[in-house]
């Protein structure tokens, strides 16, 4: 049953060194604030799971929190490379990063399997691709009825999943809408679940034209944290748009180890929460 607690406390209790952690969000509602809190609390040796590791994972990897990444597309969406991710893979900096690499369809099926209590997911995929040569977690099985060859991947079952959503009510029921990605599956597949929300309200109600409202009942969540702006610089539909300038600037910030280090020290390690982080960025020319 969800407890409504401050983010710092939620991360302190839920995320432990060495955990398998999924911070999910498919370009929308990316849990940046929660990722920053993981950096502030200096978690180590995490296995990070995410279909689309982007800027927040670049920061968590660059900050030295990660030992492994399970993913299917790692880029700065709309911009290009993730330089901290690349530096970790190409040069082992700040630490070597083991990689378990999939395609989107397989990650999605693996999350579904995790949420469904199944040990593996099945997909019509990976045929002809080199990925199975390098990832022992891709196997092939035969359909017992037709003999067709299908790919199988083990279920994803994070120790902890963290997502950001638009609203929660005071009982801890969570509502999100718009592009909802694989968030429901990530929450249901995890042993522990943390949700940050834009606001806590008396009654959950999607806006009139909300596409695709998704409700996660309080009893499948461990902690709900009110974190206004918790998805910045990504967006929260109905609250604020994506800060596209930041994504572009990140390319420059992250190319260089020292620039990155100074940025993360000043704006993340040197701040206590989203509000301070935002003020710190605004005080800095070009967000850098």
């Amino acid at each position, binding site marked *: 049953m969800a407890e409504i607690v401050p983010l710092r406390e939620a991360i302190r209790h839920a995320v432990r060194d060495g955990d398998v952690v999924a911070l999910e969000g*498919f*370009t*929308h509602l990316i849990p940046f604030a929660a990722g920053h809190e993981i950096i502030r609390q200096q978690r180590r040796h995490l296995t990070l799971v995410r*279909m*689309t590791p982007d800027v927040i994972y670049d920061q968590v990897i660059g900050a030295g929190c990660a030992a492994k990444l399970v*993913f*299917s*597309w*790692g*880029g700065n*969406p*709309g911009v290009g*490379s*993730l330089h901290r*991710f*690349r530096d970790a*893979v*190409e040069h082992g900096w700040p630490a070597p990063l083991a990689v378990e*690499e*999939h*395609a*989107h*369809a397989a990650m*999605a*099926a693996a*999350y*579904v399997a995790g949420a469904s209590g199944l040990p593996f997911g099945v*997909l*019509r*995929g*990976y*045929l*002809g*691709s*080199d*990925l199975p040569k*390098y990832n022992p977690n891709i196997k092939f099985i035969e359909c017992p009825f037709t003999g*067709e*060859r299908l790919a199988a991947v083990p279920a994803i079952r994070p120790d902890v999943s963290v997502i950001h959503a638009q609203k929660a009510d005071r009982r801890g029921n969570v509502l999100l809408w*718009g*592009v*909802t*990605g*694989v968030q*429901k*599956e990530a929450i249901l597949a995890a042993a522990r679940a943390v949700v940050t929300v834009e606001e806590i309200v008396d009654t959950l109600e999607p806006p009139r*034209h909300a*596409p*695709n409202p*998704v409700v996660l009942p309080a009893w499948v969540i461990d902690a709900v944290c009110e974190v206004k702006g918790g998805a910045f610089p990504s*967006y929260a*539909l109905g609250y604020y*748009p*994506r*800060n*596209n*300038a930041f*994504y572009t600037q990140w390319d420059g910030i992250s190319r260089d180890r020292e620039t990155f280090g100074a940025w993360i020290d000043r704006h993340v390690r040197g701040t206590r929460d989203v509000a301070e982080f935002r003020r710190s960025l605004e005080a800095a020319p070009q967000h850098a």
Partner: protein
Amino acid sequence: MPEGYTADEMMTIAAARLVRNGAAVFVGIGLPSAAANLARLTHAPDAVLIYESGTIGTRASVLPLSIGDGELAETADAVVSVPEMFAYWLQGGRIDLGFLGAAQIDRYANINSTVIGDYRQPSTRLPGAGGAPEIAASCKEVLITLRHARRAFVETLDFVTSVGHVSGSGGREQLRLPGKGPTAVITDLGILTPHPSTCELTLTSVHPGVTVDAVVAVTGWPLEVAAEVATTEPPSAKELAVLRDLQQRTLRAHAQS
């Protein structure tokens, strides 16, 4: 290159023309998104644009910067979860046309978007597969767009992320891949199509002002050239106007955020 338009504009417009009206199109960010939206705004008003973020039938007024921009959701006929998108819509065989880009392509339109160099010690770590392997497998037809260069059009891929025609004719059938694979590779110089019997990519059209030799020179394998190479119809005034209007609207909208 003739005056009045850029090579990228020609490439986008050439790709847009291959989008049939009414087709369900799986669109990626960047050139595919520009091409699919251009098609929707010109000859293919009933094309159904689908993004892997789960948005079905989007009619965004500007091009998205990310695959899950808010306007894609707000202008969609339906928004579904990402697992549903990959299972029911892509794997379910409902997509007529998929767009793919690549860092490397070979003569059978197999592509690499994973690494340059050795997988375990890459010289360049690329973003990775994303939806590509299953787009390549399950869409009824695939268009590949990338700029022509020797480092991109290679004899041997460093890594096979997604297959096109595998190692030639019959390759897809042997793997029991449902779709018919890439039907065209559209570059900034011309259009390559798989040979009807061998499936090897063959230069069938050059964009206006481009010579066959220029294309051969930036292709990293001995490029097959069709007996008669067409010249791509140059952009019409309308195509150019609609594309530029779309891109200017996009710049203005994104400058605000």
